[in-house]
């Protein structure tokens, strides 16, 4: 079984530019989550999709972040325009269960550096 795939693994962009991160969950997993870890801090929840619907986007920091999951398969997270404080590691995770947390499968993360 293929795992959760994230692309790119690293991205370095200038402040003000746009970056799009992609996550391919495990096939058949309806639940897809985005998390972020800013340097030295805890991993924080950004949002949760169930299929193509946003179930919970309470962790999205501001309207510069836009997440989509068209067709309920892969998801993208766009940051536009990027700011220095957006630097960090962005994790994606997926799970099959709904309504109970059995533990996710995480991707390797995308390390975003905004300079």
């Amino acid at each position: 079984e293929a795992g959760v795939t994230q692309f790119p693994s690293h991205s370095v962009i200038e402040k003000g530019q746009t970056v799009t991160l992609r996550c391919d969950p495990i096939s058949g997993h309806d639940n897809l989550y985005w998390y972020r870890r800013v340097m030295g801090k805890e991993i924080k929840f950004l949002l949760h999709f169930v299929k193509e619907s946003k179930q919970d986007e309470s962790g999205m920091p501001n309207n510069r972040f836009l997440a989509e999951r068209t067709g309920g398969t892969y998801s993208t997270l766009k940051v536009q325009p990027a700011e220095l404080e957006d630097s960090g590691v962005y994790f994606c995770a997926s799970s099959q269960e709904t309504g109970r947390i059995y533990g996710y499968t995480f991707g390797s993360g995308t390390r975003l550096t905004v300079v």
Partner: protein
Amino acid sequence: AQSVSQHNHHVILSEAASLELGCNYSYGGTVNLFWYVQYPGQHLQLLLKYFSGDPLVKGIKGFEAEFIKSKFSFNLRKPSVQWSDTAEYFCAVGLLSNTGKLIFGQGTTLQVKP
């Protein structure tokens, strides 16, 4: 607000030493508890989890954790660490009242000296 606290940010041990990493959470309701590990260059992996029943749970690679409800704690233990246990360890709490998001602690970096 709910939070998870990992008291040890950086731990250095020699091989064969015993390990205990502390984790406390603040939430009065029912929780699911997890420990994740991230080995250098790899993705986050589930070490073990607690949902209900026996508060002593065993995970992969000889790790175990004990849920003490009265102390809001879920400490991770291993009797004898190996060099290959060098990694970052994350405690996480899932609240049954929400849709599945996890609240993570800040992580503990474990360095095991051969």
